[in-house]
């Protein structure tokens, strides 16, 4: 009987103690609002730090002369697992009167892209890269289909 009572009360005591320790921990957080880790998102847009490798969307780099490095080789189109990229080529007659392949439109379907980075790996001239943008929501799905080469841009000299 004595042993039973002793067990009974140690059990109760242990139980209460474990509960109390838990409450002490949550109480600690309640009394230390400094521990709050929330960031208020739309307000902190300016200070938001995304690492430079973050894969937000595929973009084509253009320099000041509005020139890019894409030769239209379609390697990225082949590397893409889900048909996100469509390369449309045209044939230009250059100064010597020869026909030369050049890119007409680099069509990129953002809604299909899984940001897997395979196209960027595949590109032999580093014409495309990942941008850190991530606010992609739009009201119309068509707006997600983008042309990555800017209007009037052309191939940079010396890129083969």
């Amino acid at each position, binding site marked *: 009987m004595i042993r039973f009572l002793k067990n009974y009360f140690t059990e109760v005591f*242990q*139980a209460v103690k*474990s*509960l109390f*320790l*838990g409450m002490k*921990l*949550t109480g600690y*957080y309640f009394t230390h609002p400094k521990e709050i*880790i929330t960031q208020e998102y739309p307000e902190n847009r300016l200070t938001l730090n*995304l*690492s430079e*490798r*973050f*894969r937000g969307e595929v973009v084509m780099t253009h320099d000041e002369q509005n020139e890019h490095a894409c030769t239209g080789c379609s390697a990225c189109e082949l*590397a*893409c*697992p889900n048909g996100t990229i469509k390369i449309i080529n045209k044939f230009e007659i250059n100064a010597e009167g020869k026909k030369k392949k050049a890119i007409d439109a680099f069509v990129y379907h953002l809604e299909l892209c*899984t*940001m*897997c*980075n*395979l196209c960027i*790996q595949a590109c032999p001239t580093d014409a495309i890269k*990942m941008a850190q943008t991530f606010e992609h929501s739009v009201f119309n799905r068509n707006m997600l289909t983008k042309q990555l080469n800017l209007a009037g841009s052309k191939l940079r000299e010396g890129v083969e």
Partner: protein
Amino acid sequence: MIEEITTAKEGEMVINIGPQHPSTHGVLHLLITLDGETIKKLEPNLGYIHRSIEKMCESLSYRQFIYSTSRMDYLSAHINNHACAMAVEKAMEIEVPERAEYIRVILDELTRIASHQLWWGAMAMDLGALSPFFYAFREREVITDIMEETCGARLTMNYMVPGGVMTDIHPNFVKHVKDFIVQFKSKIDEYDTLVTDNIIFQNRMKNVGLLSAEDAISYGTSGPTARGSGVSCDIRKTHPYSLYSKLQFEEVIETGCDSFSRYLVRVKEMKQSVKIIEQLIDNIPEGDFVAKTKAVIKLPKGEFYSRAETARGELGVYIVSEGGTTPYRIKFRSPGFSNLSALNHMVKGYKIGDLVAIMGTLDLVIPDIDR
């Protein structure tokens, strides 16, 4: 099957748990037969999130198919990728550079910790304690930040390529991983105070959801679910891959066979993972991060299999190649599927509240089950 269940006996009641239910963590549908609150029978009903990843892989090249496996068990994306990359490397006999192996193992273990942390929070949430979820996410956030910095994505990284890793690690990688270890070690005690030692939690977990070692084997369970029943089945120990044969760590085995042992296995595994990372992080060798491979990978004709220990158990990748650039057939042996099959056996005779707790300790990720 369903007809059989709807003709429940007098006094029994059939309830649909899911596909929209807060504690099935996704679109799992369970048909349970109840007598009062006691569960008589449970029938998982799958297919709500089937995306036919295996079939899709048949039309993807060996570089491309890896990315889709991040979407299976999204919480162990790196480990899935690793297993696939290993299968291709085995077939092609590619020698993976030492540096790549180090990076891979560190990332694998970080993934495991992140996965277990999410499980820990979700498990406590299933039992009705909501605060631990946020504490777990605080530490997990550090890992996802590391992933974002080095791999470029937070969840579906696609960082492993056949022959190594996609890019070299970020210059800050080592420092941030060390910071994480320091933070993790200072907070892991809170996990125990808040949940493990809590008397209510222990009562909910102990002697509930019993799965004997024989049953664990016969249902084909693996990972922490089987190790909680005293079955040694850690692929990292039994069939060491990558660097694991050289590392010092323990395979966590608990012999309680109940929910609480499965819980303990996962909590202790986090500490073991930290131990592994500590051994590697300081001596990542210099060198290439990826082996030279041909632009178009063609696997020789034949069948190839590789296995890896994900956060949920054994993942097997089985590739049949006809010698072309795409696989003829790919089969994934996903751990969640087999673990779920043991659920009916485990919940019989327990209450609805226990069902939720037992399901929590199985750590189900539904896209892993359904693929």
